[in-house]
């Protein structure tokens, strides 16, 4: 599953949109299967891959709806391909059941949600960040989540590669939470040469078919190797609670162990998954917590306030889930105020409040329907000074 077969990949300085960068990142990471459904503002990802995937003998499918799209992606992954779909809020809602299937059956894949105004049809061409909690809690039952938040076109590329790597390493669907601004804007990105970034492939079984345990582990945080359909393993995949053989089980002890495994395989490896940016935090008394396109506006607000001598900085989570709480805590504990601007009514603010434990006041700044205004962040910073 190497990316070295793509003669149409152009490394170096490019001027492209976030969505194009996501498509390029996917191909770079070895994605050779895409199934999706058109929805603003994600459609360009599908359109770019419709052109590129056939050129590398990959599969591009436009399915009849989003539910079919994620289903086909999971099927393609079970047959051994790195697979992705891309959508926005309404499609992400439709996909929840099958994403849960991906968690339960431990199937690697990438789901891109380019967030737009919600709820419901909302604002198809307006940005939002209102699916953050949905990414964590959208599908029923207890399940792990890895969700990444790019804030630049460069990050759209890099985080897509990281998303594929995590999905292969930890055997689960990984979510990329972009937003309409980051996905549709154009800016400079430097695409790495083939072979420059590490590409991770799913662990394959070394034992022969008779001895293979599709969902076996010695310790709950271990990742079972993954065979592919058609390779002679004749194994069973189901969304029912199952034991290490993959066959359904009713035994509470066994089921509980499997659930803990789903959780532990991610949560015991958080330090490999966390990524964040620290902007002027060394002496910061005010910590702005922002992500995605809002972080770009926050940098402007911080620049203005720094000119006035205000000691303000930004903590930008790039990995949104699992949220890098202890890292945030280390900055908040030294601060006098946390400001959380979001293009939603306050979702990450809930995590920040929890981390702050009431010791540091948290001001949530909600905005929507357009790019976040730096002046609103400035206002919030000044409100408590």
């Amino acid at each position, binding site marked *: 599953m190497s990316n070295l077969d793509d003669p*149409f990949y152009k490394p170096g300085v490019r001027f492209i949109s976030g969505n194009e960068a996501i498509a390029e990142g996917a191909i770079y990471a070895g994605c050779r*299967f895409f*199934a999706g459904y058109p929805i603003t503002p994600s459609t360009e990802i599908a359109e770019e891959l419709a*052109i590129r995937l*056939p*050129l590398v*003998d990959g*599969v591009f*499918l436009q*399915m*009849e*709806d989003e*539910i*079919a*799209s994620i*289903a*086909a*992606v*999971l*099927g*393609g*992954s*079970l*047959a*051994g*391909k790195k*697979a992705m779909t891309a959508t926005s809020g309404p499609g992400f809602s439709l996909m929840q*059941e*099958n994403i849960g*299937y991906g968690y339960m059956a431990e199937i690697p894949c990438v789901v891109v949600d380019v967030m737009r105004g919600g709820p419901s049809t909302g604002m198809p061409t307006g940005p939002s960040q209102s699916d953050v909690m949905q990414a964590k809690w959208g599908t029923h039952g207890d399940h792990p989540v890895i969700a990444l938040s790019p804030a630049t076109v460069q990050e759209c590329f890099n985080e897509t590669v990281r998303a594929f790597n995590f999905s292969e390493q930890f055997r689960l669907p990984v979510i990329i939470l972009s937003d309409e601004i980051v996905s549709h804007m154009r800016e400079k990105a430097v695409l790495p040469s083939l072979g420059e970034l590490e590409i991770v492939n799913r662990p394959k079984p070394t034992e022969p078919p008779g001895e293979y345990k599709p969902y076996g582990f010695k310790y709950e945080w271990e990742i079972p190797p993954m065979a*592919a*359909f*058609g*390779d*002679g*393993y*004749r*194994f*069973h*995949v*189901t*969304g*029912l609670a199952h034991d290490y053989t993959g*066959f*359904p089980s009713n035994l509470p002890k066994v089921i509980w162990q499997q659930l803990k495994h789903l959780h532990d395989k991610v949560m015991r490896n958080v330090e490999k998954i966390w990524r964040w940016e620290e902007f002027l935090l060394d002496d910061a008394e005010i910590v702005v917590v922002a992500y995605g396109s809002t972080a770009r506006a926050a940098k402007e607000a911080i620049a203005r306030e720094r000119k006035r001598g205000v000691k303000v900085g930004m903590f930008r989570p790039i990995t949104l889930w699992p949220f890098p709480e202890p890292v945030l805590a280390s900055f908040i504990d030294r601060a006098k105020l946390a400001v959380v601007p979001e293009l939603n009514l306050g979702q990450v603010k809930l995590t920040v409040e929890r981390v702050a434990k009431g010791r540091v006041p948290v001001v949530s700044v909600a905005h929507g329907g357009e790019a976040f205004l730096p002046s609103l962040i400035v206002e919030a910073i000044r409100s408590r000074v």
Partner: protein
Amino acid sequence: MAFPYEDYLRAEFMPHIWCAGCGHGIIMKALIRAIDSLKLDKNKVVIASGIGCASRLPGYVDFDTLHTTHGRALAFATGVKLARPELSIIVVSGDGDAIAIGGNHFLHACQRNIDMTLVIFNNFNYGMTGGQVSPSTPYSAFTTTTPYGNPNYQFDVLGISKAAGATYVARSTTYHARHLEKMILGAISHKGFSVVEVLEDCPIAYGRRNRMGTPAQMLKRWKEMCVTFDAMKKLPPWRVKDKIPIGLYHQEERPDFWEEYQETIRKAKEEVQREA
């Protein structure tokens, strides 16, 4: 020499969970006999299903098996097939799973003419959950959600399969076991999307609620009620009135989705060469 069903079973899970007299096991046997006749490599067969009693079948057979979400088996299977086109994919689905919640995927699998086989286990209700009405429940029949009689008319599975683009469409019953085997064999051998609707019995839920008698009595009904499509054409109308036709309803040869997609790949590469 008895037919070696056990070569194809995950015998450690038998007896299966289906009720006494349920038709699913009869269809499963016909499916196994068809696969055996075709001498398919067990390592290159994938059986996929959704949710329901019929959808429990994959767990019992010794292939790569995929038990998905309600109604979505065809979409998952489409992903498997296009990622590994050399595999033979058979989707087994109950009537509700295939044509109610799965309706959209059913239409588009037909339209795509993707090379796989769908066997619809039609027992006229949602059996797993206790016997609720489904799109194939006959008009005025009793189910737990139509306690006063079904106000809906039946979904025409064969007609819709053909209209949506399926290129092999057949029907049989659990009574006509050898005929069923033949229809399934034809479906699997056919290159393109094949639909086999199997009329069968749910004696415990649907059968009991409509006072249809023992499993054997229900089975024998199909003998009385069915004639072949050929017979329908040749016999006088009064002989075939109210009969249900079985057999091959429609077959045509048309490039399947993978063939068309290979053409897409060829055209893409050619275009890029020209521009280079």
